[in-house]
């Protein structure tokens, strides 16, 4: 569905960019982009979402070059959930979710009953319908993140890019968001690419992984094959125990100690 081929992006001297990165997000897939802080995950996500033009290489969605598609048309196909959303004004939850309808409306068009129905359905899907009349800034971190996901859902895009969706949340909310994403992928067929540094989130949620370090892909493929002691060491310079966790039902990673960087 969404493909990046040999994409490069350079911020400036001394800053990590992207160097010949190729990623394939298949339709209906759940892809994790895994890497330490500063590895270029967010940059890659912005390039994939068409918010940042790649210096070289191609990014295509269903075979079409991203830069050939208007901002509005792109927003009907790709929705983005940022790590954290701060609003400078006191919008209600419903208003925030309705903002997702932007690419479906003309310049002077107001949201119809249908748009409101879609927004409320998105709220229901994320378990936040009860909050619809609350003011967004008064919500807790986990509630905010679910409302922002609802806003992305209301965009009715087939593909959702999420940047560290759980990084700012406590473990309770982390589990909640992870299961929400899994459900949206399974029940609604929403294709997802999730950038994260959280090995266990990725292990539990994603079917494919792309490991990114210093702007380069060091491994990619099905989670079971990619997530190994060796790859974790290569990615984080950490000696870790990687084993299958019966109760969780997926691989888990327990970091043991830091090892010195090879260079």
């Amino acid at each position, binding site marked *: 569905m969404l493909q990046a081929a040999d994409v490069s992006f350079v911020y400036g001297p001394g800053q990590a960019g992207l160097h010949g990165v190729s990623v394939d997000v298949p339709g209906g897939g759940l892809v994790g982009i895994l890497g330490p802080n500063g590895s270029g995950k967010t940059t890659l996500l912005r390039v994939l979402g068409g*918010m940042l033009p790649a210096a070289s290489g191609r990014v295509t969605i269903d075979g079409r070059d991203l830069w050939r598609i208007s*901002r509005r048309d792109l927003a009907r196909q790709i929705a983005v959930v940022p790590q954290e959303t701060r609003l400078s004004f006191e919008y209600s939850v419903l208003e925030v979710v309705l903002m997702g309808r932007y690419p479906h409306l003309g*310049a002077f068009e107001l949201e119809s009953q249908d748009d409101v129905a879609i927004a409320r359905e998105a709220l229901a899907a994320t378990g936040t319908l009860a909050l619809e009349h609350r003011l967004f800034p008064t919500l807790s971190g986990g509630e905010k993140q679910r409302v922002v996901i609802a806003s992305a859902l209301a965009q009715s895009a087939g593909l959702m890019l999420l940047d560290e969706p759980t990084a700012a949340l406590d473990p309770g909310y982390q589990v909640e968001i992870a299961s929400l994403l899994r459900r949206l992928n399974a029940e609604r067929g929403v294709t997802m690419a999730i950038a994260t540094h959280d090995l266990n989130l990725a292990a539990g949620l994603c079917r494919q992984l792309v490991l990114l370090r210093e702007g380069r892909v060091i491994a990619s493929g099905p989670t079971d094959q990619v997530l190994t002691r060796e790859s974790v060491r290569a990615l984080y310079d950490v000696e870790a125990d990687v084993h299958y966790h019966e109760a969780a039902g997926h691989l888990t990673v327990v970091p043991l100690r830091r090892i010195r960087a090879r260079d």
Partner: protein
Amino acid sequence: MSLRRRVFFTVLLFGLMAVAACVFAPMVGSAPISLRRVFDRSVPFADNADAQIFFISRLPRTLAAALVGAALAASGVVFQALLRNPLATPFTLGVSAGAALGAMLAITFPISLAFAGVSTVPIASFAGALGAVGVVYALSTVRRHGLSTNVLLLAGITLNAFFSSLILFIQYLADFSQTMRTVRWLMGDLDVGSYAPILAALPFTLLAFAVFAWLPRSLNLLTLGADAASARGVDVLRTQRLAFFSASLATGAAVSLGGPVGFIGIIVPHLVRLLVGADHRVVLPASTLFGAAFLVVCDVAARTLIAPMVLPVGILTAMIGGPFFLWLLIRRG
């Protein structure tokens, strides 16, 4: 209530308020006049002092107040959304400092830019405002990737300080009565004396308002941040440019007409948000209309409180606005 009804009723309510203020304002003033005599066609206008007070003094003042109030309140809304900062004002980015520098130069040096019935000071201040806008925009786009709101804010604040120092420098060289007149100009004054300056400011303001009509939905999304807005289909750079230039144009026209009347651009949008919520499709038209009504009423107070003298209207709005601003800060903190 559906959004359509909300927009309709809000515009209706605030529109009635603005119309009521504009109808009421010319009827009151320091001198008692008879409305019957004002509209008495049998007395020639040249001999009809009541009609002259009405049509030469009060009506232009009222219209100027409505135009300045509407422009400053609307620009306040747009700048707050553009900068994602509810404490931003139309003057945050240096537009008023540029206008003040222009006015100061016109007051101090014997230059004449008078054109089409508009005297030198308004034209010079408008030129100064446009100059400041150009400098701020150039600074904020020096680096790649469009318009950085942080750079915009810093450039505006720096330019404000720099222009203020230039103003002080020129004031130091100027004579005391010129300095005094500049200080008075800075207080804001709506005694425009004729319709010419209003008509001159009108096309710029209308152009800005025409752009404003396109903006509200995009402004809503802009307050989410540039990336989030972009991801929802907003052409962020274009929206930022349109917002910046239209709001600057409206501010420049308003300031050249009535001086930098303070606090309108922050009091009005906040009061309106308290009443109708945050959606810019409601806030922007409501603030425009409420801004007009608010300044018209302030001007009535300014010209009647210490009659026959006139209080500069900017002093009045600042006396209301200062405490209001503090209350906002405390409330938000």
